[in-house]
């Protein structure tokens, strides 16, 4: 068996080398270790969920993977290499609370496109298409900050997707939305996934997890308590932490 990248065809490289990989990630803040020696790999096209109780380190991991935070130890690899600017621009993130620029809805999209070097007629077309997908065409000229919570999150998602990322990070994107708004966000995410976008999402919602996830990583106190296919981890959890969580109990133990 050939075991180096050099010996493989491009197609084989694509299937064998994960899009994103974390090796031995740790993160300390204020003298406390918040993330312990975390390793994972995310193949292209996968939908990975990160779950766990409050304070387990879900958002931290998302930020470490996305490169918003620098790990205290370990490394993140993009297609087997240290991420460069190109890698950064192949990723996008939607935050729990959408960050709206103080501009119109359309200008928010135009800004993201401009940053990616898309200009002129192409930019106008892309932005219009994204607005339509997000159901925001009517609101194009409105200031983004006067939109409702659901509309803002849809715009944030549209802005993240308009630059055609290969990997999309989502940090509890629907945690403060009503069911109808949640549905529309999930539809947009699924549509992106159908187009081949890899999804890494933090969620608290078990129903959403079942609808949206292929695999889940269950965190407890900054460590992986359990990982595997969604149905297995949520249906027949092996770890005490995941079991307690699915049953709605608070688990404070230090073992899994």
């Amino acid at each position, binding site marked *: 068996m050939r075991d180096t990248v050099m010996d493989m065809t491009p197609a084989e490289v694509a299937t064998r080398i994960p899009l994103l990989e974390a090796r031995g990630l740790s993160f300390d803040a204020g003298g406390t270790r918040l993330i312990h020696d975390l390793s994972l790999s995310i193949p292209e096209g996968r939908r990975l969920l990160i779950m766990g109780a409050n304070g387990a380190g879900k958002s931290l991991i998302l*930020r470490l993977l996305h490169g918003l935070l620098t790990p205290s130890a370990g490394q993140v690899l993009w297609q087997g290499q240290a991420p460069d600017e190109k890698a*950064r621009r192949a990723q996008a993130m939607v*935050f729990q609370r959408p960050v709206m*620029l*103080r501009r*119109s809805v359309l200008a928010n999209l135009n*800004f993201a496109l401009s940053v990616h070097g898309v200009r002129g007629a192409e930019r106008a077309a892309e932005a219009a298409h994204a607005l339509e997908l997000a159901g925001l065409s009517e609101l194009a000229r*409105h*200031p983004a900050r006067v939109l409702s919570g659901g509309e803002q999150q849809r715009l944030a998602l549209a802005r993240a997707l308009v630059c055609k990322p290969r990997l999309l990070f989502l940090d509890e994107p629907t945690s403060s939305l009503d069911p109808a708004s949640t549905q529309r966000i999930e539809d947009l995410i699924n549509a992106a996934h159908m187009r081949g976008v890899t999804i890494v999402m933090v969620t608290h919602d078990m129903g959403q997890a079942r609808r949206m996830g292929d695999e889940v990583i269950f965190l407890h106190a900054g460590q992986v308590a359990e990982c595997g296919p969604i149905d297995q981890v949520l249906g027949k959890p092996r770890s005490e932490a995941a079991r307690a969580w699915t049953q709605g109990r608070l688990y404070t133990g230090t073992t899994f």
Partner: protein
Amino acid sequence: MFSFGDIMSEAFVLILNWDRNLSEIVGLSLYVTLSAVLLSCLIGLPLGAMVGAFRFPGRGVMTVILNALMGLPPVVVGLFVYLMLSASGPFGPLQLLYTPAAMIIAQTILVTPIVAALTKQVVEDLHGEYAEQFASMGLRPQERIAALLWDARYSLMTVALAGFGRAVAEVGAVLIVGGNINHVTRVMTTTIALETSKGNLELALALGVVLLVLAVLVNAVVMALRASAVRAAYA
């Protein structure tokens, strides 16, 4: 001895009998002050935004210096610029002393720290909100600065107005480097100082009222521009 009614009516007469001389003085005041505010914004906005948005060694020191420079005494700035531009100074050959350009330079030195320090505050607050989003989008430093300045544009108009207020009311520096030369470097404030020294206190105060009206007008124009810009941006 003085009645404010007299002063107001003298101011009113001044405005009614608006003559070429007054136009010249008011025009030069606006030209010098607006030029200085423009230059200060060109320097102070990016400078303040950089200090507000980026972490770098010496940032704290720079903040302290900018804040301290906001209190620069105009006379000291005037003397400094005089020594620079004097025929015996390093920039003497430029022959800028006793010209409007010298006044613009002095006022720019006075106003830039105000614009930079206030911009820093405005941008710092905004950046706290935007930082993660910008990092996620992979913005380059200059893109960050431009985006922050653009998104803070309405607050920054107020910053520019603060700078305008300092510059238009300033007399010590422009008197020294401009020389208060009739028809050349005589502006509102130096005229007021001159009329005061001639003992024409009512006239001086009336000119002060005209200056105030001017400041109110400039503020009103900027605020109206701001309102229409908001409307245009979201029409």
